[in-house]
C-alpha cells in the first residue's frame, strides 16, 4: 500500500475515503435529482390519481386522530394534529426507508463504479419529493383555519430546511448501518411506531409529568416543534433550536466518521 503512495507514476489512484465518496456523489446532483424524480414518476405512472394518494393518506390519518383525540386540546387542534402528522411522516419515512437503500441498489453498485453516496442521495430525493405532496394538506390547513402568514412562515421554512438537512445525514447513517445490520430496518419500523405515540404529534404536554418528560427528552419532539410551531404562529423555544443545532453539527460528523470507516466494506456486505 505504501509503495503505491510513493509511486511517482501513480496518477489515477482512486481516493476511496468516505468523505471523498460523499463529495463526489454530491456533485453528481444533476443526475440523482433527475433519477429521484423519475423514481416518483415511475411509482405513480399507472395510477389514476397517483400523487394525490399521499395527501389523502395523511388526511385520513389526521381526520381519525382529530375525531378521537382532538377534543382534548380544544381550539386549534385540527391544525396542531394536521401539521404534526405531516411533519412526523417525513421523519418516519426517512428513518424507516433508509436502511434498505444500498440493498435496493445492489445490482447497480456491483456493476458500475460510482460513488455509493450517489444512490443514497437518489433515494433521499425520491422519498422527500414523494412526501412533499403531503404539504398540500398543510397549505390547506393554513388557508382553512386562517393561520397567520408572515415572519412565522419564514421561520417555518427555516425549520423545514433544518429538518431536510438533518434527514440527509440520518439517511446516509442508517443506510450504512442497515447494510451491516439487516435487522435494523425491522427494529426501526417497530421503534418509529412506538415513537409516534411517544412524540407530541397529536397530543400536547400540558401539565402531565410523563408527557412533559417525553416532550423534553425525545429529540423528535424538538424537530417537530421547530417546523410546526411557526406554522401555528408559536415561537419555538431556545431549547428546541439548541437540540436541533446540536444534532445538525454532531450528526454529520458522526456519520462521516462512520462512513470513512465503513465505505470500503459496504460493498462486500451487499
Amino acid at each position, binding site marked *: 500500500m505504501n509503495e*503505491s503512495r510513493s509511486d511517482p*507514476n*501513480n496518477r*489515477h489512484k482512486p481516493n476511496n475515503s468516505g468523505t471523498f465518496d460523499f463529495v463526489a456523489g454530491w456533485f453528481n446532483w444533476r*443526475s440523482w435529482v433527475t433519477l429521484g424524480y*423519475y423514481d416518483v414518476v415511475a411509482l405513480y405512472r399507472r395510477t389514476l390519481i397517483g400523487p394525490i394518494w399521499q395527501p389523502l393518506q395523511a388526511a385520513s390519518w389526521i381526520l381519525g386522530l382529530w375525531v378521537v383525540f382532538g377534543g382534548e386540546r380544544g381550539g386549534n387542534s385540527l391544525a396542531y394534529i394536521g401539521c404534526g402528522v405531516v411533519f412526523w411522516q417525513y421523519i418516519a419515512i426517512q428513518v424507516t426507508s433508509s436502511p434498505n437503500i444500498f440493498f435496493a441498489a445492489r445490482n447497480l453498485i456491483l456493476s*458500475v*463504479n460510482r460513488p455509493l453516496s450517489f444512490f443514497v442521495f437518489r433515494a433521499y430525493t425520491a422519498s422527500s419529493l414523494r412526501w412533499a405532496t403531503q404539504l398540500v394538506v398543510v397549505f390547506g390547513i393554513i388557508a382553512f383555519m386562517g393561520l397567520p402568514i408572515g415572519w412565522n412562515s419564514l421561520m417555518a421554512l427555516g425549520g423545514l430546511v433544518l429538518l431536510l438537512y438533518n434527514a440527509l445525514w440520518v439517511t446516509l447513517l442508517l443506510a450504512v448501518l442497515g447494510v451491516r445490520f439487516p435487522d435494523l430496518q425491522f427494529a426501526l419500523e417497530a421503534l418509529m411506531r412506538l415513537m409516534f405515540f411517544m412524540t407530541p404529534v397529536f397530543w400536547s404536554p400540558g401539565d402531565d409529568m410523563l408527557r412533559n418528560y417525553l416532550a423534553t427528552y425525545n429529540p423528535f419532539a424538538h424537530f417537530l416543534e421547530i417546523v410546526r410551531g411557526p406554522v401555528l404562529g408559536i415561537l419555538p423555544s431556545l431549547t428546541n433550536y439548541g437540540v436541533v443545532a446540536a444534532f445538525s453539527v454532531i450528526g454529520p460528523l458522526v456519520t462521516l466518521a462512520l462512513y470513512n470507516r465503513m465505505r470500503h466494506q459496504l460493498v462486500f456486505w451487499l
Partner: protein
Amino acid sequence: MSTAISDNAAIRAAGICLDLPLRLTSHHLRGTIARIGGNIIRRGGKGKSTVVRALDGIDLTIPRGARIGLIGSNGAGKSPLLRLLAGIYIPTAGYIITRGKISTLFTSRIGINERLTGRENILLSGLVLGLPRAQIEALEPEIIEFAELGDFIDLPLHTYSTGMATRLGFAIATSLNPEILLIDEVFGTGDRDFQDKARARVAALMKAASTLVLASHSVGIIRRFCDQALWLDHGRIRSCGEINEVLDAYEAELASQRQAPPSRPLGRAGE
C-alpha cells in the same frame, strides 16, 4: 518486482488478495461453500467474521492495448477480479494502479424501470452510467435504431416484447466510450439474431477501447476477441500469457476432468 508502473501499462496489480465476508450465521452453509470450492478462512479474534478468499496473490500487469481473456470455472474469481479492476471492490491486501477511463459491462440491464418509457429509460440508465445529459441525448437515435424500437420508444417498457427489452438494455449498457473496457459474459440471452448483433456491437466497442479485459466461460468467445489469456483457478492465477498456450492447457484440463469426474460434486460446473 518493481513497483513503478511503466508508461505503457493500463492496469497494474501486485499482491492482490480479496476476502469476501460470509454473511452466514449457521455452520451448515459453510460446508456447502467448502464443497463448491471456496477457500474459507476463519479470522482469529473476537468479532472477526468468516471470510472466503476470492482472490489470492494476484500479480498482474496489463499493458495498454492488450486484449485479455479471463477464463476459469464458476467460482474461480473472474467476477471479483473484474470488480477489483473496476474499482468497485477494494483489495484486502496489495494494490491496483489503473490509468485511463474505465467502463464496465457486467450486466446488460442497467437500472431499467418497467413502468417508464424507452426514452426515459435511456436517459436514466445513461445517468446511472455517469454520462452527461447532452451525451445521452446524442446517443439516443443510435440506441433506438439498434434496439429496433421505432414508435415503441415512447411506450412503457412493460409493453415491450422480451426481445425488444433485451435489445434496449443491451444498447444502453454498451453506449460507452471507454479507454479500458471490462466485460463480464453478456452474450448469454436473446435469440440468434440478437446474439449476432450484440457481438458486432461489443466487437466495435472493444475495438474502440484501447484495452480490454473480457471474462467468459466460452473458449470460443475468448479466442475471437483476445490475444492473451489469464486462467484463474480457485482465486489464483493458474497461467497467463499467449492465448493459444493458455487456452490449450485449459481445454486439456477440462477434457481430463470429463473423463475422471472430480470428487467435489459442485466443483467446475463451468463449460
